[in-house]
């Protein structure tokens, strides 16, 4: 990884932050909507 390691690691960290953040946000949104549906009795609680 010689001389440019900082840039390479930064690139992978940035990508992980954006895509990982999107996965986490999407999972959070799904669980929130499901909870609300369950609260209205539209979906069985799990």
């Amino acid at each position, binding site marked *: 990884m010689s001389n*440019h390691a900082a840039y*390479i690691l930064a690139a*992978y960290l940035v990508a992980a932050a954006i*895509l990982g953040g999107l996965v986490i946000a*999407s999972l959070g949104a799904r669980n929130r909507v499901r909870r609300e549906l369950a609260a209205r009795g539209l979906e069985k609680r799990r």
Partner: protein
Amino acid sequence: MVDLHFLANPARFRRFSQRVLPSLGFATALMLAVGFYMAFFVAPADYQQGDTVRIMFLHVPAAWLSMAGYALLAGLGASLLVWRHPLAALMARAAAPVGASFAAVCLLTGSLWGRPMWGTYWVWDARLTSMLLLFFLYLGHIALSRAYDSPERGDRASAILALVGVINLPIIKFSVDWWNTLHQPASITRLDAPAIHNSILVPLLWMAVSLLMLFVLLVLLRTETEIDRRRLENAEAAA
């Protein structure tokens, strides 16, 4: 050709996506882990770019997927406007932020590649500039689909925008290429390798497939959420 029509029904799509998502998530994580290992430890350093070629394993698939994502938006827009598929609108709403995120990854990794290779974080390179404009098209699509009080209007307006955008994208690409050849600063060396060696190509394609799986995973997950959200809104409207 597999018949995917059964997925056009939102309720059936939801059951399907709930069934495949856990295993798809597991497989994607595995693929990405192997991909990162290959990118960092198996692929050799390029003789021209050195170790920075490892950034390409993210940058190039992100570029491919963000372009494919816009084509997907246009296809979904057409199927909403022409056939009034109820699922197309929800999937477009789900896919636009995913495509925009891949475009952002492409831009940021390109910029981090440019710093050591070109000596600056941003160069008005034809491909980077086109990608930036694609990113703006995504932003417009996302903003328009959320700009209305009634979600159906946002769906149809952004579907029209996606179709106009996909017609204009080649024109934008062509004009940016033209503009770039006129203004090309002499210091930039172009790195269009005539042929990519297998030791680089295999990790690149592996990462492309892994990220494609992540793209599909995100779109399925978010579409499912949009279906549930629409159900919730309908229930609220009925109450």
